[in-house]
């Protein structure tokens, strides 16, 4: 268990136009489960590999329990890593795979076998210890990779999209298992994923990255309720937040063809910002309601418990609006009135993309 901190940590690949990770600052608490999330090429995996010692730290530093890791080789960092493709040793059995790190540490054979058995029990792998990885299913391989990490009792777990090769059902199941295991072991964990649902459901805190830069580092709830910028607002949440261009007008904000009246505090904060981006989550729009917006329905996704209505504003056919609705929903082609819960509006500066107000 350990505290991990990135301090202006930067990684620049030779010949690259911009740093893969640029001046990253993160302070991860002891035993915390931190998820790094972002689209492809955002630098999340590089940031993880910098911590693991698999990428150089070109500027700044990364500290584990206060000790600077610059120049410290991976094998001396006491970090266990779960790779995207598991990277199990094909010529070794499950037991040998799990015990390899202990063997390298010079742990006696008897103790090694005991610890491997213990980890195998935790992951329900007792019956597979003598099998080779090629004779295991994807889910079992994933568990072996986890087992290889936990058997070492390291200071930090690094996990690089460990669920991406599993099918949807197994992914949900394993997601819960990993989160539960991490809570039980209380080992500081850095987990990388591009799946924001994984990020929101697993992490104590989530670091959202884009183009090598940290966008926001906060709890899942805070990310959802108070995104720091337009990118986080649109990346977190499924379906994504609705966004309109807006301007201040007559004590309100003109957006989507309607005059919306946010809180006084938001209005006050928006003064002097000129052009705005107004955001509203699909669940904060309602069919009927105040009826501020007029929507032409293009498509309805019926999920059983509720439905999502996709459409465009009547006076802006290029706009994309998503409304969460109940089981009774309009049909495609209908023109409906949609109400806006103005207490839930998010305002951003159109130029900088930064959040305005609280």
């Amino acid at each position, binding site marked *: 268990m350990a505290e991990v901190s990135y301090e202006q940590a930067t990684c620049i690949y030779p010949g690259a136009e911009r740093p893969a990770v640029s001046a990253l600052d993160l302070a991860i608490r002891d035993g915390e489960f931190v998820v790094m999330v972002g689209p492809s090429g955002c630098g999340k995996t590089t940031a993880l590999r910098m911590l*693991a*010692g*698999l990428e150089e730290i070109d500027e700044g530093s990364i500290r584990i329990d206060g000790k600077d890791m610059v120049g410290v*080789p*991976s*094998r001396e960092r006491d*970090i*266990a*890593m779960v*790779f*995207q*493709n598991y*990277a*199990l*040793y*094909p*010529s*070794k059995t499950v037991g040998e795979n799990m015990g*390899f*790190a202990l063997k*390298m*540490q010079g742990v006696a054979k008897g103790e090694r076998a005991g610890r491997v058995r213990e980890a195998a029990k935790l992951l329900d792998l007792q019956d597979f210890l003598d099998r080779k990885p090629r004779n295991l299913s994807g889910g079992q391989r994933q568990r072996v990779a986890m087992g*290889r990490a936990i058997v*070492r009792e390291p200071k930090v777990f690094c996990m690089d999209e460990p669920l991406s090769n599993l099918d949807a059902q197994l992914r949900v199941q394993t997601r819960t298992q990993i989160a539960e295991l991490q809570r039980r072991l209380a080992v500081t964990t850095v987990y990388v994923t591009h799946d924001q649902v994984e990020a929101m459901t697993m992490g104590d805190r989530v670091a959202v990255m884009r183009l090598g830069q940290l966008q926001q580092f906060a709890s899942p709830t805070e990310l959802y309720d108070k995104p720091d910028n337009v990118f986080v607002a649109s990346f977190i949440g499924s379906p994504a937040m609705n966004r309109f261009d807006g301007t201040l007008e007559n004590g309100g904000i003109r957006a989507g063809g309607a005059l919306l009246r946010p809180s006084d505090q938001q209005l006050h904060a928006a003064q002097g910002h000129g052009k705005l981006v107004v955001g509203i989550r699909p669940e904060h729009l309602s069919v009927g309601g105040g009826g501020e917006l007029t929507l032409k329905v293009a498509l309805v996704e019926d999920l059983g418990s509720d439905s999502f209505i996709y459409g465009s504003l009547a006076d802006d056919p290029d706009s994309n609006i998503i409304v969460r609705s109940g089981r009774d929903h309009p049909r495609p082609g209908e023109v409906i009135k949609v109400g806006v819960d103005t207490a839930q509006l998010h305002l951003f500066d159109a130029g900088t993309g930064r959040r305005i107000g609280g």
Partner: protein
Amino acid sequence: MSADSMTAQAGPVTPAPEYTGARKKRRHNSLTLGIVGWVVGILFFFPVLWMVITSFKTEAQAYTNTPRVIFSPTLSEYKTVFSSGLWPYVANSAFATIVSTILVLVLAAPCAFALSLRPVKKTRDVLFFFISTKMLPVVAAIIPIYIAARDLHLLDNIFTLVILYTAMNLPIAVWMMRSFFLEVPGELLEAAEMDGAPLRRTVVEVILPVVAPGVAATALICCIFSWNEFFFAVNLTATRAATVPVFLVGFISSEGLYFAQLAAAATVATLPVILIGWVAQRQLVRGLSFGAIK
């Protein structure tokens, strides 16, 4: 309606005429290719078959103008071959082959590892340099090699052949093994590094088991090349260090060609390579197709 009744009502299925035509054409093509394949295969195999058959004939039978297919086989030529001092030649060949192959593997493995998994800026140039050494015909280098060997008092010395065979096979071995090492996922190395394994143990415990079929294939190729090498052996050895191919030439004398004896000796000379190839067959097929199949 049940699935069975639906099938029953559907009646016999008649394929569309274009479909049957295409299938016929495809079958015709594969038949032609099959015949061509067999003819080519037999053409390649025929000299070997002829050699083995002739080795069981007497010299007189071997010389009949219309070669006889039916004859009473004899081992007399094999007896002659074994009694004419074959074993020292076999020992020399075996020594040169085994030692040079071991040396090649020991030198090529770290080299291929570096060139594949730890590449640097000039890796491609280094690889080209290796293969360029095979572009020079051996005959062009034989005089300087001969003079060097003579001045170092290494003529008719088996270690000269060991050195030359090592040098001869090293570029091919580096290229072959590099292609096998390239197939090793980089994450395996990283996993071993994270598990605290130093480089030597990573290579021995993680990498080598993965590339074992490739190493076996490389070793076999080196063995075959060394065992069959003739040019260096005939030019640089005389009596003490001569190898099996040199022994075979002894049957082509000024008094004439001893076909049956030559065939018997050649069959004996071929056996070890066939034996090794047969034993290593599974590894070899895996090794040679290693790069093609992920």
